[in-house]
């Protein structure tokens, strides 16, 4: 893990904000691998998985994924001259609980069960969702309202970095939305519990979003083109 990270850091320092396809690919690769490692870790070391103990598994996943995401995206922070790496990382870490609150609110409004037995799961799930959605943007853009607006209200990413942040985040949210669908079905499967299938959906959406963002990167590469994403 660590050699890849440091290698990336060197490359990233060279470019300003314009990110090459290789960088984007590496970032997504490492994020995806981080998820896989987290799942593997939970399964083999702690002997839990999403079905048997969702709260702890989610906890493990976000604990492992969090430094990866924060460090990687902090490397691509906006205005690297005026904003130190540490500051960007701090922004990312502050974005984590803020995003978690937003995600919790969204989930509860959409129908996530509330109650003491679900509390831990919901908290852990929303932190993970926050990692997928809010934290990268927080690390990169900080409090730049204009950029947030562009990415999340208009969904009009411009440039590779925007794709990298915007598309997986939307993918995770939409994936989680679809992931909630099987929950009311009467199949009596353990994975229909909140938030297991929603997590699966979110992860799948996130990964798909990565692939799509890479696709966009390939197509629109270095050019700063106006692309309407969904």
């Amino acid at each position, binding site marked *: 893990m660590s050699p890849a990270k440091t290698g990336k850091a060197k490359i990233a320092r060279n470019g300003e904000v314009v990110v090459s396809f290789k960088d984007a690919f590496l970032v997504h690769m490492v994020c995806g691998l981080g998820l896989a490692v987290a799942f593997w870790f939970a399964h083999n070391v702690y002997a839990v998985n999403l079905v048997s103990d969702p709260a702890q598994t989610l906890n493990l996943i976000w604990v492992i994924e969090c430094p990866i995401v924060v460090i990687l995206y902090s490397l691509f922070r906006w205005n690297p001259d005026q904003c130190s790496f540490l500051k960007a990382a701090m922004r990312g870490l502050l974005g984590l609980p803020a995003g978690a609150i937003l995600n919790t609110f*969204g989930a*509860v*409004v*959409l*129908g996530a069960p509330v109650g003491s037995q679900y509390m831990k799961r919901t908290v852990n799930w929303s932190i993970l969702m926050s990692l997928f959605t809010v934290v990268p943007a927080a690390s990169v853009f900080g409090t730049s309202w204009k950029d947030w*607006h562009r990415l*999340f*209200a*208009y969904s009009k990413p411009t440039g590779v970095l925007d794709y990298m942040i915007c598309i997986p985040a939307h993918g995770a949210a939409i994936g989680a*939305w679809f992931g*909630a669908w099987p929950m*009311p*079905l*009467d199949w*009596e499967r353990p994975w229909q519990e909140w938030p297991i299938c929603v997590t699966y959906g979110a992860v799948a959406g996130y990964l798909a979003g990565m692939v799509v963002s890479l696709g966009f990167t390939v197509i629109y590469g270095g050019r700063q083109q106006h692309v309407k994403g969904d």
Partner: protein
Amino acid sequence: MVGSSTRKWELIWPVFFILILHCVAILLFTRGFLLTRTELSSFSHCSDVLHSPCFPHQSEDLSTSSSSSPSINLSMTDRLEVGDRDGRCWTKPAVDRLVIVLLDALRFDFVAPSTFFDEKMPWMDKLQVLQKLASDERSSARIFKAIADPPTTSLQRLKGLTTGGLPTFIDVGNSFGAPAIVEDNLINQLVRNGKRVHMMGDDTWLQLFPNHFEKSYPFPSFNVKDLDTVDNGCIEHLFPSLYRDDWDVLIAHFLGVDHAGHIFGVESTPMIEKLEQYNVILEKVIKELRNQSGPGGLHENTFLLVMGDHGQTLNGDHGGGAVEEVETSLFAMSLKEPPATVPSEFDTSTCKLDSNGKKTCVSSIQQLDFAVTIAALLGVPFPFGSIGRVNPELYALSAGTWNQPTINATNCINWSNLEEWMQTYVNVLCVNSWQVKRYIDEYSASSVIGFPSEDLLRIAGIYAQAQDKWSDIVNNSFLSGKDIQDKRFDTSLCTLRELIDAYSEFLESVAELARSKWTEFDTKMMGVGLGIFLVSLFIHFVFIMRATKLHQVSFPTIGDSRISLRLIFALSMVAIRACSVLSNSYILAEGKVASFLLVTTGIFNLRYSFMNKKMFMEAVVFLLLISILRFTIEIGLSKNAVGTVLLTGGQVALNIIAEIVPILTLILLGYLLYTTIPGNSCWRILSYLLLTGTLISYMLIALHWTLESDMFGKPLVFEGIGRNFAPQLIYAIGFGLLILLVFAQVFMPQKGSINSGEILVIKTVAMLFVWSSTVIILLGRQGPLVSLGSIIGGWCIIRLHNSDLDQNHSSVGALTTNPLPVVQWYLLAVCLFFSTGHWCAFDGLRYGAAFIGFDEFILVRQAVLLTIDTFGVSHILPIFGLPFLVSLQNSRFQNKQVKRILLVKLLQVFLIYGLITAMTTMFTVICVTIQRRHLMVWGLFAPKYVFDVVGLILTDVLICLASLYYFCQIEDDTPQDTVMKK
């Protein structure tokens, strides 16, 4: 004026056309799908049998035959009369006591030996004790394949088993909500005739027979995940009962197999464990019975039945008409061994060697025949509505049907047992046929939708034939008497057989006719209905397009017809909601699905307001509101599942809050009304009346609730009057104001100065508040909160909608109506339906609401109140509130052109709303068509269908009324138009 009204009609005729189309389509479909049967309230009595032709000389011969020596009476009639004097009723009691062990969802292959099937599965041959008895003691024990009729749900099956009829989805009877059986039935006959019935197990029995059992030990059946509570309760009470003599009929209803099937499926360890447990229990039961079956023992002449009420599929589902679901088993055993087995020609059994190499026979019986056979065995009158036939094999199992206890038996030794039995059986069949004929006649006479007359004629013919044969034999035997007994000996077997065949033919054709009428769907009719429905949807769409065109004719500047993202979004929301009704799980969670989709649109809005940097507050408020609604929906759903809610609450503070909050909300509502209404000048008197009327209604509501609550202890002298007086007055005021409002349309003063949008707003507000008081009092204390919620929700939708209108189209009334707010409006209405504690099942109706203000039951009045309660907040208010969506946005424009655009837009909104409702209903219809053999069809899909269809028709009617009401403006408008042109 003529011209104006044609212009009005030109606008709104599509609404009426669609109403008619929907009515036709639904009528046709319903005729094919919803089978109905009328419950008759007649009961069989012991004495009825005197009117039957089976006792032709009853009245005149009663004295003579009784005085003459019984030893020479060999005719069947006389023997019956002898029996009569023994104190029996329709038939001679053949068994003394009956033990029914009912194992819910007992598949046929649980009981029958595995050699009867192609493949031995793990769940077979588990009830070894029954198989062993059936093969060892073939004359007294037998396994039957019992064939049930759909719907194969426990409640319907118990009803079918005890009434001997074919319960349909809607048994039109006088039970208003409660499932208790009002028809004549076996249990009722047992109780009437002095049998003591004890029951233990599934509490469904108590729902059906609330006060029939002398002793009952009910256990809750709703928790499917609980495999053992009911069974353990049964076991606990069953064994002690076997030693007691305080019962005649004992029913033990075990649920474990049903629950194990529902949760784990048939091929699972819990299921096999359950079956093994049952084997042990049954072994013990039979041992206990046997121990006491000696002469003079407690169970000397006891009859044991081990049976299922329906089968189940491998997944453990049941309800439909699949082979696995309708085939259940029945094991019957008589503790007193009959002297012979049933004659071969009546024997339907197939015999095979079982796995131990012993011969086992399995017969077949219709569940329809159960009630009448048991009634015949116990000697009680047959249930009035039974159309079954006394099953010869089951009947012959009891020794009591063989040994004639009277002197006859000793007198005619040369009669074989067999003939004697057949004689008895013919007698029973005669009574049986007479009773079925009587039922059919009475049913055709009293039911609106009876049987086709040609079928009735044919059946009457068959009956007459059989009866002729009967009287021939009877007359012969009377004329001949003892002298030609030898001759009879030769012929009797043959004639008896013919007679039995004739009666059986009659009974079978009746059953066939009844089945075709009560259990088979008319697919052709359903198809036609569905087709018309589809066409109506298409026409609906065309009408919307036409409205758009009208719109563009009057305002040709805008030709923008690009399909926007938001149109697709709105369409996909409707599509998801429509498709969700295809699955039973989503129907169960319908409220959640609706709120999920509504929140999704809300988030979409939030994103827009985020984008445009305005109306942010509204979007958030909207989301918060829905999340509150969502919790109330969940409370409603849990009520649906569990029964009654928590909230018994001992805290005084909580109670006081619960009392006061609604009243405070009511005051707030009144204030809202006060601030909205007097904004105009032209309707002064009217608005004054409206205001006072509604405010008085609100005060009355508050008064009513205060009186009802026990906050002030037992209060006030006029309680008795006040309780009914206040609601009645509220209804009256509401009705009066409604009439006033409608008449005001006609005589409304013409004022050109007021712009049309404002008038529309005022009209809408007036209409809503006129309805509000009635709806609120019917909804109870949640009413004001729900109304406030809907007002806030509606307001948010309008504001959000207006914001993006202003943003995107600065020109007047640009483009066609945006469907998104209409979709939101619709979803909000659906959410409100569920959050007010309703759900799409008949037990989801709040029957209590029908009796607010009235004590006695009058069908029409109570039905109207119930409809207003059920659909008030989800159909009536939203539809009358729809004009807000168009009226508020254009309030700043004044000219005539705008007025017309406004109306066209209003029409469009109405049409779109109707289309959304129709689309959802359409999918429900498709769903019940596809799933008509599904296990949940009667439990879930059919109620949903009824609710949706009623909702759709109501929506259409309301849209028609609303358009009549709101479109009055054109009439007021046109004369001015012409004047101005001049």
